């Protein structure tokens, strides 16, 4: 699989602040690439640099094998994007908005073609309504229609689920899966909704304070072989002292009140529970914690 986005040493400084710091990553063709980070981590700045809205201070961006600084137009012709909330022309109708952005992408579409595209996002019935009468979910769907109007190979979505109700989020999730699996598009998506990202992304890039802290295949990163176990006991501190005298010591990750988090292989869990019983330790509950949220928090809480 060839790479669609190839970023090397990308840095952006605003006066004294370095928003993105020496970021290097590669997005392979097809599939959904999740881009995670806390607020202010540098996600939006990175996405804006990928769309040439912001000039990098340093570094190189290659998309479709082309240097973005030299082939901006060719790259953007094959790229569709939603950047944060999809702000469109409120005083125009959906079909007028779509036609306008299609024209900007070098297309001349008939009303029927425009209506077909609106139909795909479920807005055909409101095609002639002004955007100011639209709900947030409808605006988001129209934003997606705008991003897809020129049938791009790469779709960049910055927080596409923001402000949507559960149905809206489910619709976007379905659309992302459909675009990726059925139409073979490459999707680069940032979102705060970690559970949603876990459901749609194949690969992940996590940044923190402008720097990359993790990158790779979702399954490899979450590593089901090495489960994170949360154990609730009478006193986590006491248990920790006890465990430090055993081979389990190096499996302790953190302690929080009465809970202790450890990392161990799946088959080690029954053996660990048995030993705790022998050591007369009261175990009130034991949970496997392998969600993306846990992984993300364990990285960014450092």
């Amino acid at each position, binding site marked *: 699989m060839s790479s669609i986005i190839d970023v090397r040493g990308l840095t952006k400084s*605003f006066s004294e602040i370095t928003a993105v710091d020496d970021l290097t990553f590669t997005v392979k063709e097809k599939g959904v690439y999740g881009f995670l980070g806390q607020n202010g981590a540098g996600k939006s700045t990175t996405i*804006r640099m990928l*769309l*040439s*809205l*912001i*000039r990098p201070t340093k570094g190189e961006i290659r998309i479709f094998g082309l240097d973005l600084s030299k082939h*901006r*137009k*060719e790259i*953007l*012709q094959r*790229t569709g*994007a939603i*950047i*944060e*909330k*999809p*702000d*469109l*022309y*409120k*005083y*125009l109708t959906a079909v*007028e908005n779509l036609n*306008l*952005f299609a*024209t*900007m*992408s*070098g297309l*001349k579409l008939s009303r029927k073609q425009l209506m077909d595209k609106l139909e795909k996002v479920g807005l055909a019935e409101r095609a002639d309504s002004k955007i100011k009468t639209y709900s947030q979910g409808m605006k988001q769907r129209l934003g997606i229609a*705008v991003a897809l109007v020129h049938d791009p190979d790469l779709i960049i979505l910055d927080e596409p689920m923001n402000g949507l109700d559960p149905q809206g989020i489910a619709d976007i999730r379905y659309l992302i899966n459909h675009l990726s699996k059925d139409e073979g598009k490459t999707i680069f998506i940032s979102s705060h909704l970690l559970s949603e990202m876990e459901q749609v992304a194949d690969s992940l890039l996590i940044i923190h304070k402008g720097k990359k802290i993790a990158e790779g295949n979702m399954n490899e990163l979450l590593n089901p072989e090495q489960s994170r176990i949360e154990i609730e006991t009478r006193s986590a501190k006491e248990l920790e002292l006890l465990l430090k005298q055993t081979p389990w010591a190096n499996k302790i990750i953190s302690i929080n009140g009465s809970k202790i988090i450890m990392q161990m292989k799946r088959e080690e869990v029954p053996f660990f529970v048995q030993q705790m019983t022998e050591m007369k330790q009261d175990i009130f509950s034991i949970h496997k914690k392998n969600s993306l949220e846990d992984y993300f928090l364990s990285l960014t809480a450092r």
Partner: protein
Amino acid sequence: MIPLLKIEIFKIFKKPRTYIAFAVIALIIILIQIALKFGGKEYVGLMMSGMGDSFEEIPTKTILNGYLVCFIILNLLLIHVPILVALVAGDAVAGEANMGTLRLVASKPVSRIQLLIVKFIASVFYTLLLLIWVAVLALLVSIALFGVNWLGVPRELQFNVMEADDVLWRYALAFCFAAIGLICVAALAFMLSVFSDNSIGPVVVTVCVIIVFTILTQLQIPFYDETIKPYLFTTHMLGWKGFFYVKAVDGVTQKGSIENLSAIVKSAVVLIGYTAFFLGVAFWYFKRKNILS
């Protein structure tokens, strides 16, 4: 380029605020025409006071014809039209940033320079349409209401008289000159628009600049005549009046003459220079601008 230009013009004329300028101009011109229709005698009397007895016997109807009414309207209005031009030109880029559409537009496969060119041309198109609207209402409607006759233009203690068949070409050139002046204002508002992320700022700053410069232009203080006034674009925007100042030999005006053509040309060149400067700054900055909003 043409489809992009059509888009920009389409966007301008889909905004309700665009029509405010046309409505305001129509209202002002109609009010002036009504006032002159019913109270023209007093106005002409005031205008002619100090011009000597020779004009007293001329009927008001002869003096207050469509050409003079148009001149009066332009004199009053051409100071204020720039404010209306700023409403649209100042909104061209900043309005998009304010709405959040700039980032979407700038991420489309159109170069930033191309984007700015079509936006400015669309602002110029609006400006020219506004000027044509002024011309239609101020000249054609005034001619229809007041008829045509010779044009007498008061000028300090002089009275420049032009034959009826010597006037229309002067108006045509005066409107062309006014177009240069208004495009200069549009360029100023446009430049400020590129620097701003909200549309009110550039409009307000442009209006403030015009008001301050106009006050300085009209201040009768000799110190400013050579130090500041020659460098203010508002001073040169008044150059259109030069087309109505005619040469006179032995007290008789020369048909087809312009008293100081070189001054008019100089003013036009200064205005074009300012326009080029404003646009140069706008293009230079926008090409490098980080689009954050």
